[in-house]
């Protein structure tokens, strides 16, 4: 039991509507969890609360039994945008978190080399951030996160701003890296296909207020073929669950208007 989410709710002051209501989830060590749901359902809010960047109005969070009270390097976040620092080159960006933690220089260099090679960016280590492509930026951000050796990795639609080919490549790269490092990954996405490709379990959030609509275990063997019959069957099952939510929401909007 790595990460425990107990009855989390989040209400924003100023609007009476709740973004999240009574979310409870237990995530095991080394599990790959994907969170999907209609846009605006609070997926990112949930991730931010786990990251400690936002606080829940109600409920508790525990990482390995310790309550989560703020951001920390035991739960590194990868954002939708790369969040790299343009005044540093690829190498120094990757070392950034380790420098904050005060790791010895040799250790920093060794880890940076290891993870830059893992994301296939070793040859680009001296490049400036504006000189590399969008996919390479996200790989740099991934290497930076991996270097901190945090037990939990939180990913907020990290590939959604990239083109299809790059996304596909990064997905399978991520799967390899996850198999190699066995981190607990919480991955928010709006793509059901992405979720079925990556996840051990898929959490579907419903909209307004966001609560756990359903949790689907995905038992397909890895690496998964996105055009195999089994894959499509699971994808369809989850898609229809998500779409019911979208339609429910659209109907409510319509009735209200």
């Amino acid at each position, binding site marked *: 039991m790595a990460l425990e989410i107990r009855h989390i709710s989040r209400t924003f002051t100023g609007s009476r509507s709740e973004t999240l209501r009574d979310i409870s989830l237990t995530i095991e060590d080394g599990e790959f969890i994907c969170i999907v749901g209609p846009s605006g359902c609070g997926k990112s809010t949930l991730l931010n609360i786990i990251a400690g*960047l936002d606080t829940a109005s109600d409920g508790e969070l525990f990482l390995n039994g310790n309550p989560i009270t703020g951001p920390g390097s035991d*739960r*590194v976040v990868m*954002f939708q945008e790369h969040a790299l620092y343009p005044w540093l080159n690829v190498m120094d960006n990757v070392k950034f978190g380790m420098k*904050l933690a005060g790791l010895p220089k040799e250790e920093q260099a060794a880890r940076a080399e290891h993870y830059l090679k893992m994301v296939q960016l070793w040859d680009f280590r001296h490049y400036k*951030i504006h000189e590399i492509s969008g996919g390479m930026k996200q790989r740099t951000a991934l290497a930076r996160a991996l270097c901190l050796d945090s037990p939990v990795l939180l990913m907020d639609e990290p590939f959604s701003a990239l083109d299809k080919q790059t996304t596909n490549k990064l997905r399978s790269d991520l799967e390899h890296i996850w198999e190699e490092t066995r981190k607990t990954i919480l991955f928010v996405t709006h793509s059901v296909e992405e979720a079925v490709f990556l996840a051990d379990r898929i959490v579907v959030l419903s909209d307004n207020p966001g609560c756990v609509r359903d949790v689907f275990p995905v038992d397909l063997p890895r690496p998964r073929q996105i055009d195999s019959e089994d894959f499509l069957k699971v994808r369809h099952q989850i898609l229809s669950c998500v779409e019911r939510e979208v339609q429910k929401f659209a109907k409510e909007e319509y009735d209200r208007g």
Partner: protein
Amino acid sequence: MQKKNTIAAKLNNLLFYIALILIWQGVYYWGTAIAGLWKPYALPNPLGVVESLKKLAVTGVLFQATAYSLRRALIGFLLSILIGTVLGLVIAASDYFNRNLKPLLTGIQSLPSVCWVPFAILWFGLDESAILFVVVIGSTFSVSLAIENAIRTVPPLYIKAARTMGASHLQLYRDVIFPAALPGFLAGLKQSWSFAWRALMSGEVMSAYVGLGYTLMAGRDIADINQVTAVMLIIILVGILIDRLVFSNLEHRILKQRGLV
């Protein structure tokens, strides 16, 4: 191709100013010698201005005045950067001071610096420190507002990312906020420099015994409108030169390093 274009643009620029000077000289000649509209000493003319510049250069007044003015500007502006940065950090870091002190600084900054001259003379007399005071008070708050604005416009994502990597408050400022705010700060400093330079001229016109502002007033005292114009041109030139050589240059380098130009 790119290079050719810039040369063509420069040439175009040069031709425009040559034409402007020729027209100026023509109007002067026509108005004073042919139409008799103005007395020759009432209007500056390009040849007269060049003559004045030559005279000021030969006697050494030009270089001495420029050196004095630059020295004052430099000392005053450095003081402004020091004080202004501290104040700027205060209004950037504290919501309380941002709500209460920032409007006051904005208000004082909107006061033309020449308005501080009487105050400065009352405090310091007709003295170097009076001029420095006017320079410092004329540009410090602009520096503060520049640093505050630069810090407030740092992308929140940079800060979020650092916090999730475990950055402490101090590390957040040193490793993220300062480097991220640097280009914006430099852009703001450019404006502060022009405030400092203008404030210096206000001070020198009123109370100096040497300097460009003083030479300007000396030209008025001997009713030499060509000298007045010559000094005005020098003041413009020095202001622009410092901006180009120091601030724009630095800003451009940093933006280029980050791939922003």
